[in-house]
């Protein structure tokens, strides 16, 4: 997940700074400062942890990997637990932002999914620095009725054509199309759609993506990484490139509102990006002992399942699956079936040079300059 500024992020900043008047690290840590994605944990998880361990949790949220990274790079964040996404995680390890986990304190690691731990090795060899928390996909959230009205019954709702085929998306222009405001999310998908290797850093490929995006650009209402949740729910837009769990939040808000708005999420049949959000301990965390307790607590199968039942993102905890609600576990857009799972690809870190070119290209797509 990557995004731009959002109120919660800005408001959260002040809180933690005040809360972390540097206390000496000791085995008797009585506070824990957690910095996590917005809407990303069950509301009971924190009180349960506080009660069991007698540790007070200061919990802050963000909606952008870039913001998290900016803070970690500056240092002295005061956070004990942060939750970066896989692609960002690797270079953050290289920059020395995290401390190695003390696995003797993490006996619940045995519950984690072996396949995911295997894939995580690509970012974190030996799984030394991070605990996968949840994972998800980038897909399409859409308003069922509005799309059907404009494209008829045979609308390509299970394909990237809905968003990336200029002929199709032009018909949706009037009801509102939104894209995530993050080239890290958009570019690999468009490359994949155009049959280019998503990991390619070739400037020529970048140009092709840019040219294609410019064909879609006239039909895009806005670029934002969290606004689409409410707008989908209210019927202010009809199609959005979004993160799976966020679209499901929109779906439940729409049905709560009872205005007849029906929101659906689809993993396009061509395949999409799969990402992992990873809990890690910053190198300068003031309360590493409490942080390990937090990690171990959240790896308990029942706690992991409780979080997933609340946020509708699949957990990386294999032992938790038997506690997960059936409507989530059997939903092919949350737990994709094998034939779709095979077509998922992971987001990988990019070189600084490529990132600069891509940011520039993204500005060009958005502003025409």
């Amino acid at each position, binding site marked *: 997940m990557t995004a731009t500024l959002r109120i919660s992020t800005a408001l959260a900043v002040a809180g933690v700074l005040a809360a972390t008047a540097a206390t000496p690290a000791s085995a008797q840590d009585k506070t824990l400062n957690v910095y996590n994605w917005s809407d990303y944990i069950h509301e009971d998880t924190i009180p349960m942890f506080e009660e069991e361990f007698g540790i007070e949790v200061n919990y802050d949220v963000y909606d952008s990997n870039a913001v998290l*990274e*900016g803070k970690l790079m500056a240092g002295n964040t005061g956070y004990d637990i942060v939750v970066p996404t896989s692609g960002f995680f690797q270079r953050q390890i290289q920059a020395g932002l995290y401390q190695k986990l003390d696995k003797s304190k993490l006996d619940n690691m045995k519950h984690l999914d072996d396949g995911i731990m295997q894939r995580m090795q690509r970012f974190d060899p030996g799984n030394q620095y991070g605990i996968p928390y949840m994972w998800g996909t980038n897909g399409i959230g859409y308003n069922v009725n509005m799309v059907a009205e404009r494209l008829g019954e045979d609308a390509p709702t299970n394909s990237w054509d809905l968003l990336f085929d200029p002929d199709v998306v032009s018909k949706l222009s009037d009801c509102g199309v939104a894209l995530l405001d993050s*080239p890290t999310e958009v570019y690999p998908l468009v490359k994949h759609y155009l049959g280019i290797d998503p990991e390619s850093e070739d400037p020529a490929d970048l140009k092709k993506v840019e040219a294609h995006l410019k064909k879609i650009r006239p039909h895009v209402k806005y670029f934002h990484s969290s606004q689409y949740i409410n707008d989908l729910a*209210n019927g202010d837009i009809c199609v959005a490139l979004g993160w799976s769990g966020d679209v499901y939040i929109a779906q439940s808000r729409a049905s709560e509102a009872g205005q007849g708005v029906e929101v659906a999420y689809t993993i396009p049949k061509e395949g999409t990006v799969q990402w992992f959000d990873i809990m890690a301990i910053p190198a300068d965390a003031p309360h590493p002992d409490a942080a390990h307790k937090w990690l171990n607590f959240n790896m308990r199968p029942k706690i992991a399942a409780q979080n997933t039942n609340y946020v509708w993102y699949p957990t990386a905890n294999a032992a938790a699956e038997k506690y997960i609600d059936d409507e989530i576990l059997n939903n092919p857009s949350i737990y994709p079936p094998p034939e779709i799972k095979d077509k998922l690809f992971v987001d990988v870190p990019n070189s*600084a040079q490529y990132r600069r070119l891509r*940011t*520039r290209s993204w500005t060009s797509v958005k502003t025409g300059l």
Partner: protein
Amino acid sequence: MTEATAKPGDATALARLRTAARALARRLSVDGRTGVIALPYAWLFVFFFVPFVIVAKISLAQMVLQRPPYTAFLLWPDGQTWPTIQVFWSNYAWLLQDPLYWIAYLNSLKIALVSTVLCLLVGYPIAYGIARTPATVRTLLLLMVILPFWTSFLLRVYAWIGILKQKGLINAALMSLGIIDQPLDMLHNDFSVYVGIVYSYLPFMILPLYATLEKLDVSLLEAAEDLGARPIRAFFTVTVPLSLPGILAGSMLVFIPAVGEFVIPSLLGGPDTLMIGKILWNEFFSNRDWPVASAVTIVLILVLVIPIVILQRQQVKAQEALE
């Protein structure tokens, strides 16, 4: 005390001591004055000059993957007595190479300038009105100008989304009155950015204007009237020139922060609203390139500060000429 220790009768020595004491006292009083002046200078030094030097230093570095993510300014290998200075000018060269930066600077200046003029047009009558009301009501009116500050700036800007959006308050009201049948497109474009900036910065225009207009001697206007000037002419020949310091102060207070504004364009602006704040955000967060971000900042400060210094110089000269 010095005098007491001197031998009585030694007149010349006594006189010499007296002069020394007087000189000391004079020096002390000078020191007292320096002390008073030193305070704001120390403030500026710590909170403006030092950060500026740090940012300037980072702007001469290059990006690396470590914390902090830029190369060191001083290299001090073991066994070397003096450190070597490491400077890269490439960040500034980069800014020249891509027209994007200049377009963003110019666009920011344009948006800030238009907003300042709008603030002046809206703020002047308000300030004038407040300054002309009876003192009892005046306090209440001033309080109302300041009142919005009690709510978070972010929330107030966010509220405009609800007012301006397609199904927002204004569109809903106009549609239900039958004035329009298609919702107006008022959000995520330059219009909404101007609304946001003018709304947010208006108090900064009103307050200095009020301060000068309140001090304005009403008898001057009466004199103008006696000499046959119509109210409009009296306003433009007497009131406006006398309130010029307020106009300048208010315009500066609006213009300078508006150039670097980030929150308002990112919440209310469209994807093609290009301001230098967004460019800075991209450099800092998307590219994680602190050196280029710092170079953008330094250029912004120069673009802003140099014209202001020139303007102030001219003002001082003009004032001296008057005196």
